[in-house]
């Protein structure tokens, strides 16, 4: 019985934690297109080893008829240097609704026009409604409720062309795009197409372009040429704060 305290984490070499520091324990589940049996289990173990998991153990496998699914545990040997991680985040001081309204009054001094839509063939409006509609989400009012913001929700299944046309028509300061369906990266296509359209119209620099959805990160948004991206649990005030501060920053007031 030694009497030492447990190992402290080395943040430059982080490993998964099962019940002991650095035991590396990871659970996996997947299916292989091979027939059920000992050989299938071995295939699963070999795969896990290739992933860098020591002592892979198939704790369950099941015959799916030509396919086999597995549950497997193993000890991950890779490490991550946590200290060197920098995640791009929307850099903005979040203001609540009243603060946003005051900000507009003081810094923008006119109505801000925002157009939003769920584009392409995507019919999932709950997300964009949560941001724009009066009622909002989880007790946070939507943009329609903001004095000084004129918000237009175009709803679902809006072609990018229509969205751009509307933005031009109302002279929008910002466009908000929602993308929920991500199968086969359809959102990436859709979002990219919008940027191209805006660029073709010479509008890209004059407008603040924001996207959101459960699989959208700020990083992805920036890669695709957006000013910001918002993921799950976003509220109107997050978006409003960003748009307003960005307008001032980019002198679009």
């Amino acid at each position, binding site marked *: 019985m030694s009497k030492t305290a447990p190992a402290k984490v080395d943040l430059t070499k982080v490993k998964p934690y099962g019940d002991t520091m650095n035991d590396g324990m990871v659970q996996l*589940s997947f299916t292989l297109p091979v027939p059920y049996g000992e050989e299938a289990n071995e295939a699963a173990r070999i795969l896990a080893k290739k992933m860098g998991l020591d002592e892979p153990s198939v704790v369950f496998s099941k015959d799916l*008829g030509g396919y086999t699914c597995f549950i497997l545990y193993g000890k991950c040997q890779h490490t991550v240097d946590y200290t060197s991680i920098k995640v791009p985040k929307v850099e903005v001081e979040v203001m609540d609704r009243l603060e946003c309204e005051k900000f507009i009054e003081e810094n923008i001094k006119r109505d801000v026009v925002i157009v939003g839509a769920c584009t392409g063939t995507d*019919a999932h409006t709950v997300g964009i409604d949560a941001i724009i509609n009066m009622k909002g989400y989880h007790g946070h009012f939507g943009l329609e409720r903001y004095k000084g913001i004129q918000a237009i929700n175009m709803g*679902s299944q809006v072609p990018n062309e229509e969205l751009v046309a509307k933005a031009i028509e109302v002279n929008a300061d910002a466009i908000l795009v929602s993308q929920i369906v991500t199968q*086969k990266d359809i959102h990436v296509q859709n979002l990219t197409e919008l940027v191209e359209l805006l660029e073709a119209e010479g509008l890209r620099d004059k407008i603040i372009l924001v996207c959101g959805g459960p699989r959208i990160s700020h990083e992805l948004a920036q890669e695709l040429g957006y000013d910001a991206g918002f993921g799950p649990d976003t509220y109107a005030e997050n978006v409003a704060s960003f748009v307003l501060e960005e307008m001032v920053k980019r002198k679009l007031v």
Partner: protein
Amino acid sequence: MKSKLNLDPKIIDSARSSAAKIAQDMQKFIDRHTTVSTERTVLRLLGIDGVDEYDFPLPNVVVDAIKDGGGLARGAAYWIGNAMIQTGLSPQEIAERVAAGELDIMKLPTASAKEAEEKIMPEVKKALKNIKAQTEKRNHYLQTLGEGKQPYLYVIVATGNVYEDIVQAQAAARQGADVIAVIRTTAQSLLDYVPYGPTTEGFGGTYATQENFRLMRKALDEVGEEVGRYIRLCNYSSGMCMPEIAAMGAIERLDMMLNDALYGILFRDINMQRTLVDQYFSRVIIGYADIIFNSGEDNYLTTADAYEEAHTVVASQFINEQFAVLANIKEERMGLGHAFEMDPDMENGFLYELAQAVMARELFPKAPLKYMPPTKYMTGNIFKGHIQNALFNVVSIWSGQSIQLLGMMTEAIHTPHMQDRIYSLENASYIFNNMRDLGEEIEFKKDGIIQKRAQAVLKDAEKLLKEIEKEGLFQTLEKGKFGGVKRPRDGGKGLEGVCVKDEQYFNPFIPLMLGGEKNE
């Protein structure tokens, strides 16, 4: 059977009678109109199939020609009958020539409506006979192979590739699935035509085409024989092509079809006039083909709150029931929809879900209720999600639901992977077996939380139905009473495809399907 919820039969009757009036009122509107897709359906039933050189379906080519020629008000049946008389060609040959630009059926001499109807009657009878043969084949399978116990285990496949779907569907059947639904590709419901042939590319689903139906039907018959259980096939006929897809389903022996105009209006922004007219013919076909239809009330709870708006589901179920009555669908084929969508963090939420499910069972005792899993409050936490699905399964076996759409623990993430489906099947099979006779065993405390909740929801539903009875269904939809979604009467997609019938209009299938052959 005594109501376990102590529901007041007078309120039930009152709700049902309001719903009947709402449906009858709408039926008057429906009876005056036809649509492009209704007419394309007539053509499909008459055997017209295939595509032109641009991959455009022949039924569309012909109906567009009729419409452009100003003849839609008389109905496609007339024009085909007339063309048959004038050219001596079969409907398919006529369509092909129209597509090739070799024939303009609007420029032919015109026979009388009666003559045209008589001319096509043999084709009509043939179509009906084929459909009946499919029904008999299904019955034969059911008698020889048998079927799974209720609640049926219903899973979806949605790879986009029909051949990949088949692999997964067969695997699921081997693991216990009773019903396979092939989810359609995103936005197919907005297409004003039905794609053709086998398909291998779709987003979040696979195209509904007649060939895909046929391929999947065959695969399920095969695996059904292998596992000794008839495996039902389901697809979607809501949307712009309601009756066409219903007809394809009847021809290819689908067993179940999602079919709900209200769904199209609210969740696909399809014009309400268009789709309510379409719905009628589609349900007549479904009734004739002995297919179970599924309505989409469950969807209301994805946009509106499941606790607050529970009564809208009940009200809509009553309306859907009455629409089905008018289309001569048996109670045993009315797969009215509802769902387990309350916030899992709600104290006693399970009790409210249970109250709702038992109530649905009592209100529609013979209906093969379609019970939808939690979706809205599913998260990336698959372990929690698996438990949410478990409670959903508990409510289902307890309350005697009929068709159990299996919840997938990955609902918030992706359309199901092969293993997701297997673990869901396991979840439901375990619970259904382990709790088999629970419903029989249990009584609810008089005036307890459960009874009171059910009574209150029923009362609210009755109230809403009375309002709709007064205002009419169109106006109700304009006000956003269902799912919190407002739709204008003249908005949405497809209004241009609606047309008022002229006096000579006829659709030879409807009368026969409703009463004729059916009861032969």
